[in-house]
């Protein structure tokens, strides 16, 4: 029997090595695998290269991993945000390396790694400083720049539901980088709200087929979700509204 489920987040992230390249899914908070990142912090691997869209928010998740000085380099499209103070401080102190990649090139380069493409001519970034030094070619009268795949040792992603074969479905815009990252990593580790019996996911609606997935851990249904429609009452970070009022008081 194929069973990719593991009992807890610590087991899920076991074996990630110093120096690894780790993709981390999510766009802002949506789809960010917070529990897996927390487990990676506890696990201890350092000298990491992180591939993600952002460079951490506030003091939790990816920002906490950065604060622990466990990241050597980050490849992302949009590090600078109103609450990216952890990254900002490390960058200004010269303690973290940054490679800025336009968001579409980031997604397509990750897909290319998963799809066996050696390199591709991209229309994005042509004539800008982010294409400086890159090979350029005019094809059918349009300028392109050659971009190479981005692969990883490990991908940490978040989905809504999995089965024991690792088939995944996502939820709304939390899907974002999950499917392409799952395809581009040697080991893909997924946190989900819930694991359902094999055969429960309609094969027409599977977004990430199980062959891309290595380990799945259920981290529990989010209290603010409801199968029969959204019940609301949270802020943008998922905190209950009365707790928000509490903080505001």
């Amino acid at each position, binding site marked *: 029997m194929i069973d990719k489920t593991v009992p807890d987040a610590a087991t899920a992230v076991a074996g990630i090595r110093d120096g690894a390249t780790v993709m981390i899914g999510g*766009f*802002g*908070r*949506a*789809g960010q695998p917070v529990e897996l990142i927390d487990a990676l912090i506890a696990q201890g691997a350092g000298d990491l290269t992180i591939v993600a*869209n952002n460079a951490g928010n506030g003091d939790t998740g990816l920002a906490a991993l950065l604060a622990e000085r466990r990241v050597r380099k980050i490849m992302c*499209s*949009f*590090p*600078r*945000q109103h609450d990216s103070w952890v*990254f*900002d401080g490390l*960058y*200004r102190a010269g303690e973290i390396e*940054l490679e*800025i*990649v*336009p*968001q*579409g*090139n*980031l*997604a*397509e380069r*990750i*897909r290319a790694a998963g799809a066996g493409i050696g390199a591709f001519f*991209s*229309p*994005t*970034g*042509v*004539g*800008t*400083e*982010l294409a400086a030094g890159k090979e350029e070619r005019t094809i059918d009268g349009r*300028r392109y720049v050659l971009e190479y795949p981005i692969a990883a040792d490990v991908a940490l992603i978040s989905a809504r539901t999995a089965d024991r074969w690792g088939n995944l479905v*996502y*939820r*709304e*815009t*939390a*899907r*974002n*980088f*999950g*499917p*392409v990252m799952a395809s581009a990593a040697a080991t893909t580790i997924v946190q989900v709200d819930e694991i359902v019996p094999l055969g429960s996911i309609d094969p027409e609606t599977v*977004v990430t087929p199980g062959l891309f997935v290595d380990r799945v851990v259920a981290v529990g249904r989010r209290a*603010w979700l409801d199968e029969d429609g*959204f019940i*609301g*009452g*949270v*802020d*943008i*970070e*998922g905190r209950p*509204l009365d707790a928000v009022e509490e903080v505001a008081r």
Partner: protein
Amino acid sequence: MTTRITRAALAARIASDIPEGAVVNLGIGAPTLVANFLPADLEIILHTENGLLGMGPAPEPDRIDPDLINAGKQPVTALPGAAYFHHADSFAMMRGGHLDVCVLGAFQVAQNGDLANWSTGAPGAIPAVGGAMDLAIGAKQVFVMTDLLAKDGSSKLVAECSYPLTGVGCVTRVYTDHAVFDVVDARFVVRQAFGDNTVETLRTLTGLELS
């Protein structure tokens, strides 16, 4: 001082140029205002690059859903007819030329259509590009929404961009608080001057040959 229309009026002006059925991406910041002026009786499909087509307005406060956000990471809704997709598919839509219009902010637009809107190149600034470069090259029409003049009074419409480029020759039209300009044959053409602006006063403000 010449007439300047408000940001809301400018958003309404842009909205009036978007036909029914258009697929539109509204960039972060001022361009998001355009959504407020799209006629409710016309079906215009909004794309947000983080994986949603058919984006609706902000939810009621007690219906905020952290999984459902726009590119600015604000809570949004999904309309009947919406579709979710992953990031590579979303940017493939954009880069493949399937969006009809995108509306972007700008630091500078050059008369050849070059756009600078992602970095001032200031020393010590942390670079962050997001989807700006993909959007700049990825719609059939790239509209810019901006004040004509920067805070220091300099023109944002320029002969050549001095800030780092976002995209080369990509802008088709610029909506400013003073006038609307088309980029035609590497030159700005005044399509509409607001209030008491004239081509002549706009030449003075921009220092450019306009027609």
